[in-house]
């Protein structure tokens, strides 16, 4: 049984390769035909989805064998003195789960985009980028070593850049794309350093397999103090974690994600909600052995960062009016959730939430796209209203998403969120548990606020919404289905955890005490939003009027963007770059030009000796002869000391 599965797993490289092939085809051949381009792209991703499902089934059937021993297939990629890197595929339950999620969401988004991007002049280009993204993302999921992961990690960053800036005629999109790339680059700086130092220490970057990082850390490696008593592995863990801070939008590098909403909405759904942004979480999960072997500080940092981001982004989301930005901040908050789940030591919970979140967040983004499409690019929720009646499928599926993210049973979000909160409490992090609970309340509140304002209430007369075509609603329905049932994989005795876990697997049922508390938080949030925005028992305006400072702070996202802009424009551009340029122009070049000037000046002075007067020359000539005669007469042979050849011989 396992043998045949192994054969299947060896074909896993096809999963990223097919979309890549489709990218090449579209870019080089079918660019002119829109229909052909989209067909190729969707066919490729659907085939990948099929393969991913096949591999998923294979993993489930192989059971514990593949859980304990990930299946590696590698070929050599770079081999020189002092650097050996393989490329390959790694199949274990975690990557199989990611493969399924990525291919599913990607194919849904691509199908959806037929409707959403209809008539766009860059239609083929859009599908080319989508294919490239799918290829890179899947390649990253399958990576067997840190460098391969990093390479695809950067490539998904490139695709994200290209797709955020897809409508490049918009200045805002252009700037957002640039911001996203640069911000994640800052994170990559840390990750790259981590890779370099890890390779230097261990001589390999492989995750698993003989002599790999995990094996060496578990067995032969002795940790040692590096800087000021902090151990080597801890420093490495922190460095590696800087990458996810950038990619997964953790504070303080979260600023790019809300701006990334400038891209087409399906892109936001795929890249900036479901797949690429969770790459950071996936990386930490892959490298969990590093964090585990490092001192507790490393995981505490992850937990603290995650929890802070979760509540930080949730508070901002309350005060936003743009439907996509609310969702973006919600994504940030949920990423914080996944991160602190890892931080409190529960890989299972984090991956579980990653999966469910991918379903319901992609669903909500696509729903938002459907709304935006219907309202002709209106994104402010206060310009919407009463949409449920006009757009029943979009409204209903969106509502499912809201319930899922608010943690209402039996929707997917409930199971994963509960799992995270339970892990936080059980592993001795009560503060983080409290933060998570409060964030759950806030999440329920702002998501319901969004839903109530946009989909219920009075219709706006200037809007003429209509339900989207079936290519757009079908993905919504499929994703809604997964948002409902996606959590059930945890039943009855946590089957999900049996496959995806780190260390010893514990059978854990649902802790109903914690579950009821978290349900209560969710219901409270929804209720509060209902009172505020539907029955209007509490006037939102009054609350704002009472705390104008707080509202302004939240509305302006704690002024983080302004601080960065100030730093970049005033300090980096204004002072450092200008001063250095000045230095280059006037000091370095000044010295160079000064030397030239000196040469010219001395020439100007010395040429005065060339008077052109015959008699002056004769006089000088005569006296020179006299001097030479005297020298020769008085000291015979003394001139030979000036012999240049003799000098040269002296240099040894």
């Amino acid at each position, binding site marked *: 049984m396992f043998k045949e599965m192994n054969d299947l797993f060896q074909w896993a490289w096809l999963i990223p390769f097919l979309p890549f092939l489709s990218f090449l085809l579209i870019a080089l051949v079918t660019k002119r035909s829109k229909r052909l381009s989209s067909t190729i792209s969707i066919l490729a991703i659907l085939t990948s989805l099929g393969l991913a499902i096949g591999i998923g089934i294979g993993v489930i059937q192989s059971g514990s064998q593949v859980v304990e021993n990930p299946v590696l297939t590698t070929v050599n990629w*770079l081999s020189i003195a*002092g650097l050996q890197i393989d490329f390959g595929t790694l199949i274990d339950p975690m990557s199989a789960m990611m493969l399924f999620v990525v291919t599913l969401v990607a194919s849904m988004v691509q199908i959806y985009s037929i409707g959403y991007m209809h008539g766009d002049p860059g239609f083929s280009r859009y599908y080319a980028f989508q294919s490239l993204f799918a290829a890179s993302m899947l390649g990253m999921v399958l990576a067997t070593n840190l460098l391969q992961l990093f*390479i*695809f990690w950067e490539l998904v960053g*490139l695709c994200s850049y290209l797709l955020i800036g897809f409508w490049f005629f918009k200045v805002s999109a252009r700037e957002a794309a640039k911001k996203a790339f640069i911000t994640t680059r800052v994170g990559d700086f840390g990750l790259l350093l981590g890779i370099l130092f890890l390779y230097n220490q261990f001589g390999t970057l492989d995750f698993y397999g003989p002599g790999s990082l995990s094996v060496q850390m578990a067995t032969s490696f002795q940790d040692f103090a590096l800087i000021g008593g902090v151990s080597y592995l801890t420093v490495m863990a922190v460095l590696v974690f800087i990458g996810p801070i950038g990619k997964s939008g953790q504070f303080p590098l979260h600023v790019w994600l809300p701006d990334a909403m400038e891209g087409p909405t399906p892109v936001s759904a795929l890249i900036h909600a479901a797949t690429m942004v969770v790459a950071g979480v996936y990386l930490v999960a892959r490298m969990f052995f590093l964090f585990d072997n490092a001192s507790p500080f490393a995981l505490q940092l992850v937990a603290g960062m995650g929890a802070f981001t979760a509540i930080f982004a949730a508070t901002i989301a309350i005060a936003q009016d743009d439907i996509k930005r609310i969702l973006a901040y919600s994504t940030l908050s949920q990423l914080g959730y996944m991160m602190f789940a890892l931080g409190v030591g529960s890989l299972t919970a984090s991956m579980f939430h990653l999966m469910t979140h991918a379903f319901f967040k992609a669903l909500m983004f696509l729903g938002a796209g459907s709304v935006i499409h219907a309202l002709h690019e209106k994104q402010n929720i206060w310009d919407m209203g009463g949409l449920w009646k006009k757009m029943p499928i979009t409204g209903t599926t969106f509502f499912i998403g809201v319930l899922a993210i608010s943690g209402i049973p039996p929707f997917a979000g409930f199971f994963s969120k509960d799992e995270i909160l339970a892990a936080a409490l059980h592993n001795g992090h009560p503060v983080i548990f409290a933060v998570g609970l409060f964030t759950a309340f806030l999440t329920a509140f702002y998501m319901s606020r969004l839903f109530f304002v946009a989909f219920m209430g009075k219709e706006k007369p200037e809007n003429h919404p209509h339900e989207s075509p079936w290519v757009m609603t079908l993905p919504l329905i499929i994703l809604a289905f997964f948002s409902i049932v996606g959590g059930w994989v945890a039943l009855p005795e946590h089957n999900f955890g049996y496959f995806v876990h780190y260390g010893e697997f514990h059978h854990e049922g649902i802790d109903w005490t914690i579950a009821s508390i978290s349900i209560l938080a969710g219901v409270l949030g929804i209720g509060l939003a209902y009172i505020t925005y539907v029955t209007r028992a509490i006037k939102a305006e009054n609350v704002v009027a009472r705390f104008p400072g707080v509202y302004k702070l939240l509305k302006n996202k704690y002024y983080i963007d302004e601080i960065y802009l100030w730093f970049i424009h005033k300090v980096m*551009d204004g002072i450092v770059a200008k001063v250095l340029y000045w230095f280059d122009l006037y000091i*370095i070049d000044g010295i*160079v030009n000064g030397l030239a000037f000196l040469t010219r000046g001395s020439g100007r002075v010395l040429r005065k000796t060339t008077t052109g007067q015959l008699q002056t020359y004769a006089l000088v000539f005569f006296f020179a002869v006299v001097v030479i005669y005297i020298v020769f007469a008085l000291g015979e042979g003394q001139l030979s000391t000036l012999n240049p050849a003799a000098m040269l011989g002296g240099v040894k």
Partner: protein
Amino acid sequence: MSTLALQPEVGSLILPLALLAPILAALVIVFLPKEEGKTIKLVAALGTLTSLLLSLYVFFAYDRSLAGMQFNLTIPLIPDIGVNLAFGVDGISIPMLLLTNLIAFTAVYSSWNIDNRVKEFFVLLLILVAGVMGTFIARDLFIFFLFYEIVVIPIYIMVIIWGSTKRVSKEYAGMKLTIYLLIGSAFLLVAMVSIWVNATNQFAAMGQGPTFMFDQLARLQYDETFQIIIFGLLTFGFGSLISMFPFHSWSPDGYAGAPTAVSMIHAGVLKKIGGYGLIRLGLLCFPIGAKFWAPVIAVLALVNVLYAAFIALAQKDLKYVVGYSSVSHMGYVLIAIAALNVTSVTGAVAMMFAHGVMSALFFSMIGFIYEKTHTRNVVELGGLAHQMPRLAVGFLIAGMAGLGLPGTVNFIGEFTIFIGTVKTLPVHAIVGVAGIIITAVYSLRLIANVLFGPRRKEWDHLKDLHGPELVPLVILVFVIIITGVFPNTVLQLIDTGVHSSGLAKVLEVVTQAKIGGLF
């Protein structure tokens, strides 16, 4: 008089043929009437294509398992002082040879629209190409130096005739470029003569005649003081060629003043003669001197990386941005040389190759932009992706390669350098890696401001790249991507070169030895 007088050895005529092809083409062009612009360009293209094909043949036919110098040709030229017309390539020089011919061929196509004194332009260009190629295939220090000097003159003439005046006049730019190159070569000349005198004494003690051959020079033991002095001279000479801080200021001005083809060749390959020379002559023959100077070079290299990157942020002219970026990238090569280990030196050669292709593509695209819009000012440009999507693709890929995106060969170069550097100079490596952030900032700004943004009416008349103009784009992009995806093609070749030339052993010994301890 000598027992070492090499017998003429004609192993292969491929290298001299590759060298002669552009010279022959130049000769043919000399006899063409100057009105025949099209024919002249075709002949130039044919000449460089011949060289390109021959060097591709060398690249694929080179026996990697055998390694060492291959395709040798040795003709004693002046036996009395040991000058041999010796050609040959190994793993270090083949990438450089290939790079030269790639860029030469694409440079011809990047100058396809030139119409002022076409004949003279292409004659000079071809001489320039032959000169650069000669330095990389020479196995003799004298011949190396000779070809290097050949290069200087055409560059000067080309800059002052076909150059452009922006912040500085083209005459100033050409003068600065030439004088810097000559000052560098003056120091090299002193070094060369001293090496010869020293080596000749040693050979005489062994009962041999004098020689300039690299491999013979590398066999000798030079005493410590001599090594330090000579490596200092080489650092100065080659350092100013590779635009090491503070001898870099010719580079942005020079590129800005030069016509496209010269910028491409200069930034793409000529600059690399500095790095190549430091490795081939400096590291191999004077490892103790290298060890002595390495800390200094490492610090200067870091200044290169960060300082030039920051200045690139403040630039408005496209060519200045790329000019400063090339100064910044050369910092990585220098730091790799200063790190003195096998991996980093392999990375240095890979980086030179990568940066060569990347900067050639960049300058080619900028050349087309300038040709079509008559401006290089970033502020006046914008939204060019609307009118010129193909050019935008080339520009984008050049920019992405510049910031070291994986999938391009530049990433491989940088990564290999850092892997090597982190072993011996970890702190420097950290600071160097920080450079990638600033590089990203200026590259992305450039891309955003030139390509993206609202459509501008004033550029609506522009035609996208078409016909011959596409050649540089296609070839260079192909090379960047294919070597980036399959790095073994180039890196393993370099690896064999580093090992077979004895560099690996030398570096191993020298990193273990304390200064003044072992020797």
